[in-house]
């Protein structure tokens, strides 16, 4: 029927172009940026037409993929967040990217090292990295100045953050010092920054993880940090809602917070004050280890015609190109996965104008390669995040750290156990 | 040819509490059969059972010699006027009237023809476009009636179809229904509590009380020879005057301890058989002592002028009896009134069984009864 036109059943357009269906989870401004890139690709050649289609959140898109995987309805390629990696690998309905790399003799060497570290599993690439981000600390330079703090020298450690927060609140009782979104990803990053593993078995990279990998001290340090600021009255609670926190920051209700670097552009553009970007803080008593890359990568469906897969592969390569990455980076604040992009005029100009954007890159490059910063892989990480978020909220709202922590650990281990059992291997 | 036959028809809503009790009845084809009875006696229920709207608890219902207990209303080929009209609120008067014809796929031309006739007859021609809610009570009733009339089904059931009409319209309708019934040879079962309707329209009347048949017969028979006290007091308006009767001596008896009458031989015998006897006399039989000599003198308690007749409440041994005299009489309450009461006009009933012992004699019809 007519309706079916353009669905994944038709693989060619009327004028003979190869159709590539591309499922993604980019809403809002990111979708605008992505659509722009897709359009530019479609215009750049006349063999392939990429059709980018929004499929909901990362979670929903992934679930949906699982439901249609192996059928005609499955897309040619799909964007999956980093923590969906393991579940994609396990699904059995994907074509590892390594196959095309080998066939094509494509060199992945130009990629950012951390990105390679994350996505290379068992020494091969299953998916093509695309949009990557890391968390950074945003702060209000004007407020720092007013409070007598050095705006060019942001706090580095948990303790310094606390002190700065106090100073801020003292100078302006209307403003809180620090905000931490109850977001599991941030917790994971704060762990990695201490050199702690999220899961055992080297974050699940040496074998199947069977329980959590961090020590009580490492885990609790984050909770206690928050608790201390909470008692000081310098902590702002925005719960799980990132947008509220951003708005609070812009409205000068809070002076520092952690968030994905993907927000940089937006924040810098919209803030009525000078926005500072800093490295993720770490406890004083441990060295900074660095951050894990976040974001998502692109996966190839199994069982599609070769021409179709080839076309998708071509598009993936296009996305890697420095010009595109430069554009993507400046439009959104995601990294350029290809560092060559930073040489692009567009990026250079942008960095000159907004030197803060560089900080995110610097932080990534300052990261020590280790299992901790390589990031955990397992199919229960989404669940882990929910558990951690609940625990964080509990601390935010004055819950007891010890019991909260214990409950969370029990739940985490139970979840790992169930996930292992459910694989039924 | 018996058209409708009811055998031992019984109805109960709750077990053990019969609304209708063993009804046995035959109605002939083309007969105008009137059903009367006090409120709540089961008239509507009986009608609804014949229509097939109410399950028959027990007994057999035959139409045209065929058992129809099990038949659907639509297979009984009849029409009905509901006591509460049951008009379709969303349809105009015209659509309401034509509803059944359309259902039966009667031709358009025929529909229009019948509609026109019926609407005219019922005085609804001007109201055809109205919705039921825009009609007065009487107008609604006429629509309900029209709906039944227009169907020309051979059997018509009507539940108090004229109760909301004024006397003039009612008289007109009475004639129309009667005419139609004759003309189309309809069998009509007609519930009413209007004395005049019952007497003038019905070929036969059935009196129902408390779910039991009291009497079935020609209107005039019911009036003149009511089978029991109930029928006697129910048929006729104002109702028959009743009084306990005692024998004073061999040739005299007293009614209500007040009115003395002489007893003939037949009556003396009756007094031997029946212990307690009740005498009844119709209001029109307590006559002014003008052409006859006065037999009794009674106190007038109350006078009502009806225009064409005068209704008198008289004291008879402490009870109120009614007399009805044609014309307008200027009688003052409180006075003694000379009246003429003929023993002939007394009906006698057994007080125990309530059954008729002897009807008032109308000494050969054709003679003037009361002038």
């Amino acid at each position, binding site marked *: 029927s007519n*309706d079916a036109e*353009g669905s994944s059943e038709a693989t060619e357009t009327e004028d003979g172009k190869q159709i590539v269906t591309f499922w993604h*989870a980019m*809403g809002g401004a990111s979708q605008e940026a992505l659509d722009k890139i897709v359009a530019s690709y479609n215009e750049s050649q006349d063999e392939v037409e990429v059709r980018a*289609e929004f499929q909901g959140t990362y979670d929903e898109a992934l679930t949906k993929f699982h439901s249609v995987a192996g*059928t005609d309805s499955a897309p040619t390629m799909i964007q999956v967040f980093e923590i969906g990696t393991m579940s994609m690998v396990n699904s059995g309905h994907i074509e590892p990217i390594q196959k095309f790399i080998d066939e094509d003799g494509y060199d992945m060497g130009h990629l950012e090292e951390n990105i390679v570290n994350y996505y290379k599993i068992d020494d091969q690439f299953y998916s093509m990295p695309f949009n990557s981000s890391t968390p950074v600390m945003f702060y209000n330079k004007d407020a720092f100045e007013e409070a007598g703090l050095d705006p060019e020298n942001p706090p580095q450690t948990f303790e310094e953050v606390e002190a700065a927060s106090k100073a801020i609140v003292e100078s302006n009782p209307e403003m809180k010092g620090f905000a931490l979104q109850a977001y599991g990803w941030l917790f994971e990053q704060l762990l990695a920054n201490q050199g702690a593993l999220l899961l055992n078995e080297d974050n699940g990279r040496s074998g199947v993880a069977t329980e959590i990998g961090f020590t009580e001290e490492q885990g609790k340090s984050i909770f206690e940090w928050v608790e201390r600021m909470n008692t000081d009255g310098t902590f702002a609670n925005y719960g799980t809602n990132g947008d509220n926190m951003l708005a609070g920051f*812009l409205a000068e209700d809070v002076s520092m917070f952690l968030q994905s670097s993907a927000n940089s552009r937006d924040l810098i553009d919209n803030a009525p004050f000078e926005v500072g970007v800093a490295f993720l803080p770490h406890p004083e008593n441990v060295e900074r280890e660095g951050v894990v890359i976040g974001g998502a990568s692109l996966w190839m469906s199994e069982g599609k015609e070769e021409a179709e897969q080839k076309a998708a592969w071509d598009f993936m390569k296009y996305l890697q190109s420095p010009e595109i990455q430069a554009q993507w980076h400046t439009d959104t604040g995601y990294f350029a996965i290809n560092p060559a992009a930073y040489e692009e005029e567009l990026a250079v100009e942008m960095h000159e104008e907004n030197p803060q954007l560089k900080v995110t890159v610097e932080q990534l490059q300052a990261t020590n390669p280790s299992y901790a910063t390589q990031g955990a892989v397992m199919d229960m990480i989404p669940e882990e995040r929910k558990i951690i978020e609940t625990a964080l909220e509990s601390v935010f709202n004055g819950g007891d750290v010890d019991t909260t922590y214990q409950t969370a650990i029990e739940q985490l281990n139970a979840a790992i156990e169930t996930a292992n059992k459910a694989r039924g291997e | 040819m018996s058209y409708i036959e009811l055998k031992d028809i019984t109805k109960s809503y709750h077990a053990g509490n019969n609304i209708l009790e063993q009804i046995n009845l035959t109605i002939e084809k083309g007969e105008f059969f009137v059903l009367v009875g006090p409120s709540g006696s089961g008239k509507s229920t009986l009608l609804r059972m014949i229509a097939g709207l109410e399950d028959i608890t027990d007994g057999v219902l035959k139409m045209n010699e065929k058992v129809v207990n099990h038949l659907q209303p*639509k297979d009984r080929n009849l029409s009905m006027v509901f006591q509460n009209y049951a008009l379709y609120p969303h349809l105009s008067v015209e659509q309401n009237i034509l509803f*059944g014809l359309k259902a039966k796929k009667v031709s358009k031309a025929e529909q229009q023809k019948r509609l026109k006739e019926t609407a005219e007859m019922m005085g609804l021609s001007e109201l055809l476009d109205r919705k039921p809610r825009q009609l007065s009570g009487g107008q609604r009733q006429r629509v309900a009636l029209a709906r039944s009339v227009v169907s020309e089904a051979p059997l018509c059931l009507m539940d108090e179809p004229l109760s909301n009409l004024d006397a003039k319209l009612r008289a007109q309708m009475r004639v129309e229904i009667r005419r139609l019934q004759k003309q189309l040879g309809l069998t009509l079962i007609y519930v009413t509590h209007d004395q005049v309707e019952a007497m003038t329209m019905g070929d036969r009347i059935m009196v129902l009380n408390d779910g039991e048949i009291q009497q079935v017969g020609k209107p005039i028979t019911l009036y003149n020879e009511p089978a029991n006290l109930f029928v006697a007091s129910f048929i006729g308006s104002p109702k028959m005057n009743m009084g306990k009767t005692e024998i004073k001596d061999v040739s005299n008896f007293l009614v209500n301890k007040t009115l003395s009458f002489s007893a003939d031989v037949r009556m003396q015998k009756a007094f031997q058989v029946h212990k307690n006897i009740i005498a009844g006399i119709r209001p029109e039989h307590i006559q002014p002592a003008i052409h006859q000599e006065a037999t009794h003198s009674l106190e007038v308690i109350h006078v009502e002028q009806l225009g064409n007749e005068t209704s008198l409440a008289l004291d008879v041994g402490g009870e109120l009896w009614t007399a009805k005299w044609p014309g307008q009489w200027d009688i003052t309450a409180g006075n003694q009134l000379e009246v003429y009461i003929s023993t002939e006009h007394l009906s006698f009933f057994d007080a125990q069984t309530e059954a008729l012992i002897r009807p008032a004699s109308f000494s050969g019809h054709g003679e003037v009864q009361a002038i």
Partner: protein
Amino acid sequence: MRIPFGRKIVTYLLLIAAAFLVFTPTMMAVVMSFMTNQDIMTGSLPSAFSLDNYRRAFEQFPLLHYVINSFLVSIAIMIGQLILASLAAYAFVFLEFKGRDFLFYLFIATMMVPFEASIIPNFHTIRDLGWIDQYTGLTIPFFAMAFGTFLLRQNFKQIPKELREASQIAGMGDVKFYLKVVLPVAKTSLITLGVYGFLTSWNMYLWPLLATTNDNVRTVQIGLRQLQSQEQMNDWGVIMAGAVIVIIPTLILLFLGQKKLQRGLTEGALK
């Protein structure tokens, strides 16, 4: 009947106060959709009036196309539901047969099954039927509606039994009675249910998102969802503009339906 002056005043006051409370969120959204992001973020009163948000909302997704799809889907669902629900309700009220009550309770029980809980098996079903990205997949699963059946059953029960009896005597079968009497008499409820069915279909978002993979058959709520991003800053002005675009057709429908509803509601009763 005349309403006394005092009560009139009190009623008006209550009406105005209530209308204000009920309508504030909507009004606010409309106002915000014309505000600049700067004004919204600083929580100030609108300082300028701009259509910018609408322009951007329209740019971000094929809005007109979505609206048309939403209309097609909603109307199809509405009609399907009206037909199926009224048929079922008719059976539950006017037909007496064995197992009727059981079936009714079974119908009611289906209301208990949370749709989100059966969404995965249902998705698999339409996948297997090849209904993904088809109007069939978007509409047919919603045709049967216990809620609507229940609503109509409650309403049909109020129809005087004499009407059924009168038409039985007139020799009218069930189908005709259903068409000629029950449906017109229950017009109001049908309109109510129709409006409800239309609006709920119009407002669905999880299922259309799942049952479609591309913009061709997608509905307007998905557009609204695309305007909200996960962890990036929300552009409230654009979101509100999107929301206003999404609710305008339904509010218009409601406004138009209202008059019809009123008229239908006053249809007279029996005696």
